[in-house]
């Protein structure tokens, strides 16, 4: 039977197992909305801004590991979606974004709501497609999902001219797809894996440095097994939190600019660095000239272009994380070599001395609500088992430092692009994917205002998200840098004319709370978590001048942290 392009799209999404589609209608996608209206398999979620559609799809993807899907109209719909697409691209999130386009015969004529979506998104997608013939549509969708979810994942855009959604073709959804120019590597080179294992076992001061690739590659269990088999210390990047249980003794916390003293010192002094699914980002390495001066480096990554991009490595292994780690585990089990227990004992002794610095301690007697205290309270009151999304800035770092993630897919933040406004819509995506779970959005009074309109979406769908706003009346991270590096000239970092967030939440039909006394923090948190079916906006009036410590200033090495 022949179907219209719009019907083919919706049927194809169903074939891909898509249950939620985040979008916003407009002229170029009306045929698609009409097709969505006439079925119940794919649930469409109406957001209030296309940026939120992409972030929500992204949050859905990050909390499940499956592709998130967004649908927006042509022109401004597509350009509004670009921030969300770029956010997903920087963090390698599997996502398929369908953008409407003007009629094919009008492309290039400056038609109403026309923009070159393919051109605009090209530098921030894994791939994009302009579908010119309805007969190619089903196969294109299959390819889009295949590309988005395999290899190093990423967003894929499908640009759909309006006439293509009206034209008819036979619907046959392909079972599988092969693309001659795209064959992602799966297994690592066994010779390289053997070399790596030999190097790992000969280490005297080893460390695992692991990133978002472990989460995305579904390799958290293998990482945990391998690290525990060897009793080597583990540090996660911001994107890797949850890839190794944070409450385990072997975990040193996050590394990098706002990482723990013990993680950064262990990195700096290690002799064998085992990097897995991490990309040696500048926020992790600090001054590249001073990075891990004594280390031999092993690097496992599915993307060859991540290897030796910033730091030259000694043993590169291209392959999927769980596959490579399983090989390593088997080789170590089957072999005769064991780690040098005496050297390792010395190493742990040294690491525990660094730990003794207690770099995350803070002033608990100030009489002010401390952001760190709020994060610890959130951790306790959610039993460490919430899905936590965040926006970007100081609150993001505090959440990363103080919420101990034991499982992957629980920590959802814009690490690469650093997109303010990400937190609330991402929380919506996570809540749709996990309707019974606690989803908390840690944010600031700056970030939350960048997608505040989504409070309306949350009301429409009854999303019981807990918004934890650390309100210090400053763009805190900007203020911190201005304090440290611009002699306290606080240019445009003060948030004047803030709304009353309690009333704002209430006007959207939600519960609002303001907490300005440290003694009330735990009680309020407990009360909010009990409101299982309500969105609660918790406006924590925090210490205005609290800074994120420890910190590696620009140009310094990992061993040159500012502690307090």
């Amino acid at each position, binding site marked *: 039977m022949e179907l219209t392009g719009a019907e083919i799209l919706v049927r194809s999404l169903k074939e891909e197992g898509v249950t939620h589609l985040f979008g916003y209608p407009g002229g170029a996608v009306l045929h698609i909305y009409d097709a969505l209206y006439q079925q119940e398999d794919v649930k469409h979620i109406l957001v209030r801004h296309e940026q939120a559609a992409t972030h929500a799809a992204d949050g859905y993807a990050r909390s499940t590991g499956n592709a998130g899907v967004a649908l927006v109209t042509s022109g401004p719909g597509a350009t509004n979606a670009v921030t969300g697409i770029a956010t997903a691209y920087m963090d390698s999130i599997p996502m398929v974004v369908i953008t409407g386009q003007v009629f094919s015969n009008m492309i290039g004529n400056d038609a109403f709501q026309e923009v070159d979506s393919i*051109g605009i998104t090209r*530098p921030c997608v894994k791939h994009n497609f*302009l579908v010119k013939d309805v007969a190619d549509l089903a196969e294109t969708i299959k390819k889009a999902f295949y590309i988005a979810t395999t290899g190093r994942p990423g967003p894929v855009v499908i640009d759909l001219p309006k006439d293509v959604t009206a034209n008819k073709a036979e619907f046959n959804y392909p079972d599988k797809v092969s693309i001659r*120019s795209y064959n992602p590597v799966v297994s690592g080179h066994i010779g390289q894996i053997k070399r790596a294992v030999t190097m790992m076992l000969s280490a005297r001061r080893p460390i695992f440095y692991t990133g978002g690739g472990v989460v995305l590659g579904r390799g958290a269990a293998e990482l945990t097994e391998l690290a525990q088999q060897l009793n080597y210390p583990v540090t996660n990047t911001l994107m890797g939190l949850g890839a190794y249980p944070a409450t385990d003794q072997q975990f040193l916390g996050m590394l990098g600019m706002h990482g723990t003293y013990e993680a950064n010192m262990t990195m700096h002094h290690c002799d064998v660095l085992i990097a897995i699914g991490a990309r040696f980002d500048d926020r992790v390495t600090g001054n590249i000239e001073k990075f891990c001066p004594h280390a031999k480096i092993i690097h496992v990554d599915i993307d*060859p*272009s991540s290897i*030796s*991009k910033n730091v030259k490595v000694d043993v590169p292994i291209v392959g999927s994380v769980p596959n490579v780690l399983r090989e390593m585990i088997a080789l170590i089990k089957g072999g005769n070599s064991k780690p040098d227990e005496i050297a390792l004992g010395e190493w742990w002794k040294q690491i525990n001395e660094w730990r003794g610095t207690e770099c995350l301690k803070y002033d608990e007697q100030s009489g002010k609500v401390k952001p760190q205290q709020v994060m610890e309270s959130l951790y306790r009151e959610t039993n460490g088992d919430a899905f936590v999304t965040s926006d970007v800035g100081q609150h993001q770092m505090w959440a990363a430092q103080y919420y101990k993630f034991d499982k992957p897919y629980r920590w959802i933040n814009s690490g690469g692009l650093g997109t303010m406004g990400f937190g609330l819509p991402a929380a919506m995506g996570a809540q749709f994917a996990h309707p019974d779970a606690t989803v908390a959005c840690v944010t600031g009074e700056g970030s939350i205002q960048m997608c505040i309109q989504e409070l309306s979406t949350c009301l429409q769908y009854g999303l019981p998200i807990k918004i934890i706003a650390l309100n210090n009346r400053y763009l805190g991270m900007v203020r911190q840098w201005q304090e440290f590096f611009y002699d306290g000239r606080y240019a445009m970092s003060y948030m004047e004319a803030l709304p009353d967030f309690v009333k704002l939440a209430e006007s959207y039909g939600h519960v609002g709370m303001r907490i300005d006394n440290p003694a009330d923090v735990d009680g309020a948190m407990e009360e909010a978590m009990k409101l299982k079916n309500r969105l609660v906006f918790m406006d924590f009036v925090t210490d205005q001048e609290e800074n994120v410590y420890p910190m590696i200033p620009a140009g310094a090495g990992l061993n040159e942290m500012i502690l307090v």
Partner: protein
Amino acid sequence: MRHVISILMENEAGALSRVAGLFSARGYNIESLTVAPTEDASLSRMTIVTRGSEEIIEQITKQLNKLIDVVKLVDLSADEHIEREMALIKVKAVGEAREEYKRLADIFNGRIIDVTEASYTIELTDSGDRIIEFIAAIHADEIIEIVRSGVSGIARGEKSLHP
């Protein structure tokens, strides 16, 4: 170091801009770029001449390989290869100069392909270096215009880039 990278890619709209966009977005330099369809109509062949340290060239080839439209690529300069470029050189040709340009074209195996009372257009196909030598042999004031095609390259021997 100068490198000649040869790419086999899907002959699709937008494929060229993906490559060109990659170079500009990542700050890589393009000295020349040529592209045309191959004997297989679904594939295009592109030759890019670029400069960079070994690390940069390694990143360039890895990033190019990551593009979904790129089927295969090779750094031709890593091995024995042939490079050819075509140039069309229009010169003022009056009086004695006419005979002189004829001789010069012969020496360089060029052909005069257009003649007017006051000008010649010379076609020359050779390595980039030879083209530069030829141009250097003409007085700058005598040059009306020069059009160069950019380099096309192919490996020596039986090797090919075909999948």
